[in-house]
């Protein structure tokens, strides 16, 4: 059983929190339960976020102002944090907070 291979992308300034890197190919280790986006957020916090976690996460979800798209569709169409991640999914986080 191979790992769960997905792509994580950042836009709208969110990349500033991730070393300015917009696209990340990620290999999630298999675990006994399925990976949901909620799990992914925790994983991002521990493995990718360079600093200021409060600018990206709030409670068990993303901070209000960060939009999430799964394969170019609004995650609100898919139960947000409870969406079960599939292989080759593209998860895009767009910040609307990095304006001025």
């Amino acid at each position, binding site marked *: 059983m191979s790992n769960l291979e997905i792509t994580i992308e950042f*836009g*709208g*300034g969110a990349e*500033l929190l991730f070393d300015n890197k917009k696209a990340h190919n990620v290999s999630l280790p298999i675990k006994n339960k399925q990976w949901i986006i909620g799990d992914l957020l925790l994983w991002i916090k521990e493995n990718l976020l360079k600093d200021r976690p409060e*600018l990206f996460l709030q409670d068990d979800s993303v901070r*209000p*102002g960060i*939009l999430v*798209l799964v394969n*170019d*569709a*609004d995650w*609100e*169409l*898919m*139960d947000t944090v409870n969406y079960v991640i599939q292989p080759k999914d593209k998860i895009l986080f*767009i*910040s*609307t*907070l*990095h*304006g*001025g």
Partner: protein
Amino acid sequence: MCSVGDENFETEEEKCMPAGGKITLANTKCNKCRENDPIVVLRSKDAYCEACFLAGATHKFKALLGKHKLIRPNDKVLIHHQIGHPSTALLHFLRCGLDLTTHKKLRFDVIFVYVEDNSQFTVDYRKEVLKKIENEIKLFKFVIKFVSFNDYIVNNNKLGDIVDNPDNLTLNEDDKININNIFVSKLNKTNKNDILHIKKRNLLIEIAKNLNCKFILTPEISSDIASQLLGEISLGRGSHVPIDTGFCDDRNQDVKILRPLRLFDMKELAFYNKLNSLDPISIKQTEINPYSSVQDLMKKFVNDLQVNYPATVTTIMKTGDKLAINDNGKQKCQLCMGPILNSNEELSSAESTSFSHWVSTQKPDNSKEKSRQEKYDSILKHYKVSENNNYCYSCKKIEGSIKS
């Protein structure tokens, strides 16, 4: 005492906020065409496919501009450009609208301006940001001018140079200190924000006049309007709500400020940009304590409430839209140009505060011979409501704090 029931609400529903429902949108179709699969949910309840969403957004923009019939063909319009999704979307709306060859084409001339106000960063970073802005505007084949907010403030509200090349803007590392130095005493952040907001607006009007523009378009969106409304109410500007938050701000007779994006929310514009393959330039976020000023608190309050009660922003805006400007007095405030209310016979909060301050600074009369009434009469006799006819209620409190 317990306030329950004081408001005489007729139903339980009136007391509580409509919460966002948990909607299962799996296997639904687009709200509009009912054919395609949706790709976005707006306001936690409406799902749209790509085509309907884009058409809807474009239509909403054009409809709002067209509804008010203010801009005439060949008028010159100044666009206040800011960094972020709203301004980028506005770039696209305008470019598309102007490039149309049909009768629906937008028929006015536009010129962009960026007011540089990033003194919290290093000069190098500020230059980097300016270059990015210049490139973004060039992509859309528009003309952009640059003005330094710092210059305007420090030079006592005189319009400085409007430059084509951002390299020609003078940026100094100590700009932030220079801005702070114009305040006479240690002002709280709320009042500072208020003054700077008013001055920025005045600067934009000066720029528009200089460039012969009759209109200014600003990129405020619905949540900005809602938090600004609550903020202005908290500063005492209830009579100015329509010009501070409505579609058209016509306090200046030569230049009108319009807010064409006021019906959009951030998610809508972010999706609009995404679907048009636009990624706005971004700027580092500085740490802001939301409890440091009324304006920051209102932004946090509105945004937090909106998460669980998606009708918050629209309800606040609807309330504001039903208010009219109160200009029973014809005079305009020297600072914010809003109407100054005539103090009429009725007791007002302003007068009560003024009297309280007077009473708190009067040396008590301890003579045993005088009655309470007599002592009070003598306090009242020397009390005069200051007749300041040059500033409105809110500006009266802050006008003394700027060095002239």
